[in-house]
């Protein structure tokens, strides 16, 4: 009933068949040619043979009508000799009374497999980069989810919290609640001066406005600055140390400062792809 099977597979449905505009392919791994044909179909031929490579070893597979109903034992496997002449001899011996077409095609496929092996070995030596296919849909979806997750994580607030905690830990007694509003105001005042003076750097800023990167000093330094601010506030109208130009929270002091540095803001640089 090979003919019957072929009729059903060909006309109604076969899960291994894929069509392109010009030809029909068979995705069954035991197919000899890779095409969907009456002759090549491993399902529609009760007597069939192929050559396949498993982990670098090439085997001859044979299927007979007698074992058609035992899928686990259907394919008889013969390991082919590494010597080409002997391997061909093996094939010819095993398929001696078989269909001419199958025998020829098996040998042809065997030759092809050897070529492929050669080529793939060469490739392994030369190629360094491996191409990995990207699924556009998946990539787009994942990216969107990353962005959302980033927003949800609230890194800024977390870092701020962490820094304040560390400060508190470092200076438990001296720490006084900094008036955030006043601090911000003072910062803004400094920024205004910044804008007036540094018009050159404005352009730069504009360029980077998208990624919103600000020049952030080292972590230690910025901590020191904040600490100094607090010290100054407590110590009142102490003279500013001449080495560094520091910001004082009194509005008097703000005007006196020139040329001002770019202040450390608690912003985090994000890596932009």
């Amino acid at each position, binding site marked *: 009933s090979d003919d019957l099977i072929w009729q059903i*597979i060909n006309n109604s*449905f076969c899960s291994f068949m894929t069509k392109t505009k010009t030809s029909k392919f068979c995705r069954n791994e035991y197919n000899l040619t890779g095409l969907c044909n009456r002759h090549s179909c491993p399902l529609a031929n009760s007597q069939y043979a192929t050559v396949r490579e498993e982990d670098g070893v090439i085997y001859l597979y044979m299927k007979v009508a007698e074992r058609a109903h035992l899928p*686990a034992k259907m394919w008889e496997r013969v390991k082919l000799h590494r010597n080409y002449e002997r391997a061909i001899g093996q094939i010819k011996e095993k398929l001696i009374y078989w269909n001419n077409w199958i025998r020829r095609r098996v040998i042809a496929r065997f030759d092809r497999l050897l070529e492929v092996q050669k080529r793939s070995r060469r490739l392994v030596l030369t190629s360094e980069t491996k191409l990995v296919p990207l699924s556009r849909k998946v990539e787009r979806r994942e990216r969107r989810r990353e962005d959302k997750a980033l927003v949800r994580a609230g890194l800024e607030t977390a870092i701020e919290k962490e820094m304040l905690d560390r400060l508190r830990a470092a200076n438990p007694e001296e720490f006084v609640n900094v008036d955030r509003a006043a601090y911000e105001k003072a910062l803004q005042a400094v920024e205004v001066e910044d804008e007036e003076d540094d018009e050159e750097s404005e352009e730069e800023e504009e360029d980077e406005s998208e990624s919103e990167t600000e020049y952030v000093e080292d972590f230690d330094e910025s901590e020191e600055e904040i600490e100094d601010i607090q010290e100054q506030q407590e110590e009142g109208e102490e003279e500013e140390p001449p080495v560094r130009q520091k910001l004082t929270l009194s509005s008097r002091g703000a005007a006196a400062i020139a040329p001002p540095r770019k202040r450390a803001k608690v912003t985090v640089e994000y890596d932009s792809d």
Partner: protein
Amino acid sequence: MTSRPIVTVQAAKEGEKSGASLALPSVFRAPIRPDILNFVHDQMRKNTRQPYAVHVKAGHQVSAESWGTGRAVARIPRVRGGGTSRSGQGAFGNMCRGGRMFAPTKTWRKWHRRINVQQRRFAVASAIAATGVTSLVMARGHRIEKISEVPLVVSDSVQDLKKTKEAVAFLKRVKAWPDIQKVYASQRFRAGRGKMRNRARIQKRGPLVIYAKDNGLCRAFRNIPGVTLICVSRLNLLKLAPGGHLGRFVIWSESAFRQLDQIYAKSKLPDNKMASTDLTGILRSDEVKAAVRPRQARQARAVLKKNPLKNVNVMAKLNPYALVLKRKAILAQRKALAKKRKADAPASSQKQQQKKQPAAKKAKQAAVKGKAVKK
């Protein structure tokens, strides 16, 4: 077919002895007719439909009347009254916005189909027969590469399984698990509006377990994706050949398998139109060859007629002497030309002309010869 192949029963539980042999029921030798099956399947699927229809009054809940001619508008009925944007709009027609559709669907459409009993039986027999053909089951897409035998018959202790864990272990032992893995891999969301209509998730079909008596089997298997369970006494075509495609992967319990012979007694089974469906084999058989006349020698095909007066080769075929004549003519012509040139041209170029001529002669002769040989 007096001698029928033997099917071995596989052990369902660990430690069980497998190996009881049963003769293959005659159903598996029933003719496999995809055409009948497809037809019956189509008809059967219509029987679970729920009617849908448009509301009776849809599109007609307006009192609209045509304005008639002479108003520089199309003559469809228009909504009466004023004060709203609806007034004056077209109504009633299928082409109008808010109008009744063409041929409004009615609930009294014929939803269900009756199918002849014999056809139904034929189809189910075909479907069962197809489940016994390894190639068809593989072609349908089931992963049965590791299964020990087709049809897969399992000892009756399957029917006593109570826990899903045991059912899973059973499937793994019988090597049917890859088919379930395939189902897992295929779980996805439906494309289209079915999502909104409680049909969001889809997946492939897995194995069909046919039992004789349910002693907990159904509860054990029902939560495994892809698995369908039916009783032998109520074999359903829609489950045996889902989608109208032959060859679902079936796992039979031993008693279910035995019951098939009783359910499908010889009298109920359809006959095969052909005893052997191997057409190629039949055509190559000795009996046929003996009755057929020997093959005829290759017949000559009609050849396009070419004009001998224009085509040298055809002329040569008809009259070989024509070539000789032609050659003579060419040579004579050349001689005449040479004479003419000698007479006209100055003495210094005579030598050059003499040199050229023999070479040209040779080339021409070769060309003529070549043509004659090719034919």
